């Protein structure tokens, strides 16, 4: 709309604008509370300002702001009159009414008086209009005139009484309207819609009245303290009479609660009705007191009952799904009809009743099942729900005890020792994926998994460390086909995770070393690259001190190759070596390698010669060294002439020595063999068993049987056949014997004792005097393997016995270092 250049054209513009709107007896206001509440929008009946409201000022040809009609009043109160006019104009951004001012001044002469019944008459007009509005009847008087009437009354300082009169009038109608609701329909939904209607009407009516008395609102109300705007007055009256008609209020609240409950039970309800009524409560300022409180109580009861029932009826995943759905529903409810502020307490109530109270039961009943079933999704749901009610700590504890319990089954069952490491790896992988996908990689949970694993892997001393070493041996040993390098690397990395948890790393080292030695010496290693990669992993994990012996072993092997090369080319070898034999020697540095018990054997002459020549060669190169032959580690390839075909046999040195005897004899007794070979009894039995009772039977035992007895005798197997040309009979060497195992373990323990003794002496040497408890504490800090306090006591007592320490004479809790 373009700005009118003059006042006259302004009034024209007004009439033009309003003319288009159609007349209607009940003007339609936007019922929405948001609009009604906001004065700035609803109050502006000013047609120029807000085009939306044009149709409220229907069919008025007389223009309210016509300056000519105002002139009359201007006479008496020129200042007062001009002020609002100016205000109006300025609001319309019209040009300042300078020419009009001159006109006005001229007219100020006579003193017009008000008609005596001016107030009464004006009020009568207004009253009938208000009545008509409340009764929804058409009123004869047009709104424009009414507005003017209010305006006039205000100008004559009758605003106060007008306000009171309007208030009284409104109160009568409102109270009547609310009273009419008492005893209405027993059907709550019907009743609620009646209440809604009543409220809707009131809003419309109050807006209408305020529209008429806008001037009153703008002047009298604004200028007088402690007076409510007409709109607020209407609300206040409604609130007052609603609380007087307590039945109505009560019934409304009950109705609302009932409706929400039936919605929770799955019935469709009229949400707009709920929305409108709750908006009413908010508008009246009684939402939190009259509705929210009982609503939350009701919710609490509802979900308490539901929680109990569902926990009994359904299994945990279903229950969690249900809870999740419920929380979602309540959230929706807040978006749809509840006040936004209710969301927090409502969700909290639902969470408390459905979740918090049932946390232990949920964990008890379902956690293990979900973990066992690897139910990523359900666990994820559990995690996110639990995090809402700060129950993650309980979940974490449940996880910890789950791992411990499940792990215990894996670790402690001695019959399942074979599968322990693969089972643990699998278990760990499963936990890791659950942690990643369900527990959103929570740091605390990660630590819990680690702690629990460390606990369970150390539940049994030593054995897990040993089994991990053996598992690696299996993986790194030749003949492990089907796994690619990458897969092998992956496995090594995973095993390393387990290794990290092990407290007794010395046990691992001992067994790993023993197996590594066999792999290297018997040429059974699958890949030197993989071996080295494993060593470097261990090195990063435990430091070079841990691996330098292992690395030394590799060095020895490489060095031995060179030595063998130069031996072959040496003069000693070319001149003196017996023909028909090829030999290669591994020279092992004592200390790097596991200690092997010396095993005597009477070697065939050729081999003895060979050994001597090598020895001569070696010592000529490296004088001052001592060579000791480790017979138990030797292996040979023999060419065998069986009547049914020639074969090559890969055998151990002991097997070789035994078989060579049969070059000169057909049949030998156990005792004969023992005497001629000089092999230790038990070892000999094992050797004979492998030759005569195993898969490849190059000898025959008489009588037949699995075990070798003293009276048994052996004959060369004339009828030996085999599909392959080259046969391996030395698997026996790779196998670990019971003695080997115990001696490895014992050595570790022996080593530990030395370490404890050394640590005690080290500590006492610096401290001189120390109490028992402090000594024990310090020992636990220094020692890197698990040890019982009783074992420490034993060592302390042994040192007392050997007079490194003494118990203080006055305080038996204190030890003195004896220098």
């Amino acid at each position, binding site marked *: 709309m373009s700005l009118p250049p003059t006042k006259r054209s302004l009034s024209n513009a007004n009439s033009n604008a309003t003319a288009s709107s159609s007349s209607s007896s009940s003007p339609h206001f936007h019922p929405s509370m948001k609009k009604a509440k906001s004065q700035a929008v609803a109050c502006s009946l000013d047609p120029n300002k807000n085009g939306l409201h044009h149709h409220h000022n229907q069919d008025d040809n007389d223009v309210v702001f016509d300056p000519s009609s105002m002139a009359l009043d201007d006479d008496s109160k020129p200042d007062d009159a001009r002020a609002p006019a100016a205000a109006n104009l300025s609001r319309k951004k019209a040009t300042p009414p300078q020419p009009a001012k001159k006109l006005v001044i001229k007219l100020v002469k006579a003193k017009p008086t008000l008609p005596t019944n001016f107030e009464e008459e004006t009020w009568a007009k207004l009253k009938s209009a208000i009545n008509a509005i409340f009764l929804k009847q058409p009123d004869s008087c047009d709104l424009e005139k009414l507005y003017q009437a209010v305006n006039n009354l205000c100008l004559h300082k009758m605003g106060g009484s007008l306000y009171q009169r309007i208030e009284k009038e409104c109160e009568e109608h409102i109270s009547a309207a609310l009273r009419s609701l008492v005893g209405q329909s027993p059907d709550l939904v019907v009743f609620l819609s009646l209440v809604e209607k009543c409220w809707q009407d009131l809003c419309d009516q109050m807006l209408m009245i305020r529209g008429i008395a806008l001037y009153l609102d703008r002047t009298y109300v604004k200028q007088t303290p402690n007076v409510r705007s007409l709109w607020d007055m209407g609300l206040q009256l409604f609130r007052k009479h609603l609380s007087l008609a307590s039945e109505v209020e009560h019934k409304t609240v009950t109705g609302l609660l009932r409706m929400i409950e039936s919605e929770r039970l799955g019935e469709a309800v009229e949400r707009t009705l709920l929305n409108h009524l709750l908006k009413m409560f908010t508008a009246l300022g009684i939402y939190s007191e009259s509705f929210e409180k009982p609503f939350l109580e009701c919710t609490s009861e509802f979900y308490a009952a539901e929680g109990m029932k569902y926990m009994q009826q359904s299994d945990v995943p279903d229950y969690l799904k249900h809870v999740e759905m419920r929380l979602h529903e309540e959230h929706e409810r807040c978006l749809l009809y509840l006040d936004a502020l209710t969301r927090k307490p409502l969700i909290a109530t639902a969470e408390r009743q459905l979740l918090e109270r049932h946390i232990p039961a949920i964990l008890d009943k379902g956690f293990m099942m979900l973990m066992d079933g690897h139910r990523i999704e359900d666990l994820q749901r559990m995690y996110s729900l639990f995090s809402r009610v700060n129950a993650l700590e309980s979940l974490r504890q449940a996880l910890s005890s789950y791992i411990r319990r499940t792990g215990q089954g894996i670790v402690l069952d001695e019959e399942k020792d074979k599968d322990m490491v693969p089972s643990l790896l699998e278990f760990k992988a499963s936990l890791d994926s659950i942690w990643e996908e369900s527990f959103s990689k929570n740091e605390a949970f990660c630590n819990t998994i680690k702690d629990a694993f460390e606990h369970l892997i150390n539940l049994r001393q030593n054995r897990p460390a040993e089994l991990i070493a053996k598992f690696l041996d299996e993986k790194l040993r030749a003949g492990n086909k089907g796994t690619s390098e990458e897969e092998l690397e992956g496995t090594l990395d995973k095993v390393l995770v387990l290794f990290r948890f092990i407290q007794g790393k010395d046990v691992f080292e001992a067994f790993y070393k023993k197996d590594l030695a066999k792999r290297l010496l018997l040429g059974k290693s699958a890949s030197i690259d993989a071996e080295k990669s494993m060593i470097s992993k261990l090195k990063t994990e435990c430091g070079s001190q841990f691996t330098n012996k292992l690395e030394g072993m590799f060095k020895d092997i490489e060095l031995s190759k060179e030595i063998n090369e130069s031996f072959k080319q040496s003069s000693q070898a070319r001149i003196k070596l017996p023909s028909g034999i090829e030999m290669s020697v591994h020279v092992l540095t004592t200390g790097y390698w596991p200690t092997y018990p010396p095993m005597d054997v009477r070697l065939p002459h050729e081999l003895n010669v060979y050994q001597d020549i090598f020895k001569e060669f070696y010592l000529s190169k490296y004088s001052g060294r001592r060579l000791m032959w480790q017979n138990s580690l030797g292996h040979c390839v023999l060419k065998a002439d069986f009547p049914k075909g020639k074969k090559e046999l890969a055998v151990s040195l002991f097997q070789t020595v035994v078989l060579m005897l049969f070059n000169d004899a057909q049949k030998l007794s156990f005792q004969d063999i023992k005497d001629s070979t000089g092999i230790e009894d038990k070892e000999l039995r094992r050797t004979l068993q492998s030759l005569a009772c195993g898969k490849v039977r190059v000898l025959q035992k008489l009588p037949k049987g699995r075990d070798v007895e003293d009276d048994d005798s052996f004959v060369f197997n004339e009828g030996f056949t085999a599909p392959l040309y080259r046969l391996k009979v030395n698997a026996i060497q790779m196998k670990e014997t019971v003695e080997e195992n115990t001696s490895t373990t014992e050595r570790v323990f022996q080593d530990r*004792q*030395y370490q404890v*003794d050394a640590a005690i002496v080290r500590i006492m040497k610096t401290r001189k005097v120390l*109490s*028992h*408890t402090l000594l*024990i504490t310090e020992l636990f800090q220094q020692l890197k393997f698990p040890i019982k*306090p*009783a074992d420490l*006591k*034993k060592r302390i*007592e*042994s040192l*007392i*016995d*050997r*007079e*490194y320490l003494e*118990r203080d004479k006055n305080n*038996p*809790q*204190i*030890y003195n270092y*004896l220098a």
Partner: protein
Amino acid sequence: MPPRAPKRKSAPPNSLSVTSSDGSSVSSKAKTKGFVRIDRMFDSYANSSLGMIDPDGIEALCSDLGVDCTDVRILMLAWKLKAQRQGYFTQDEWRTGLKELRVDSISKLKKALPELEKEVGKPSNYDSFYSYAFRYCLTEEMQKSVDIESICELLNLVLGAQFRPQVDLLIEYLKVQSDYKVINLDQWINFLRFCQEINFPDLENYDATQAWPLILDNFVDWMREKHSSF
């Protein structure tokens, strides 16, 4: 750990004689003078070829005193005399000991025995007597521990009167256990501490995390287990 040579010269088993030094500084001349009766007494029990009282002499002495030769009072007398070697009293030991007891005849010695018993009973003396009893059992050169059987008898003799129930149980335990074949001085001393400090029979103030020797930890475990199995 392999046994190693003792770190320093092992102290003589009865270092006790050094600690209690009263009366040992009397000049030898004065000694000889006042020792006529004491010496005569000594001679009557001594084995003249050895120049000291030997086990036979002690047996004779016991029968003259009217006490059994396994009586604890004889052990007390040995303690008082600071006898170095089990079953033998040297003349020096005899002289200083009897002088201290102010005794020069068998009847006086008999009367002095209750006094001696009282003296040993004093807390300051008792510890010294108690460890003396252990050392008295070390008969071999370099011997540091005593076999279980002797220890049981010794316990009976030394602690039996005061701590009957503890001693009975301890002896029973020592005989059934198989971890220890000998007892060393440290363990021996701690037996006494145990009897003196630990409430019996509830053992509630026994704390295995303290410096008690392992054998006592085991003993307590054994008692508790035994108790709970009834």
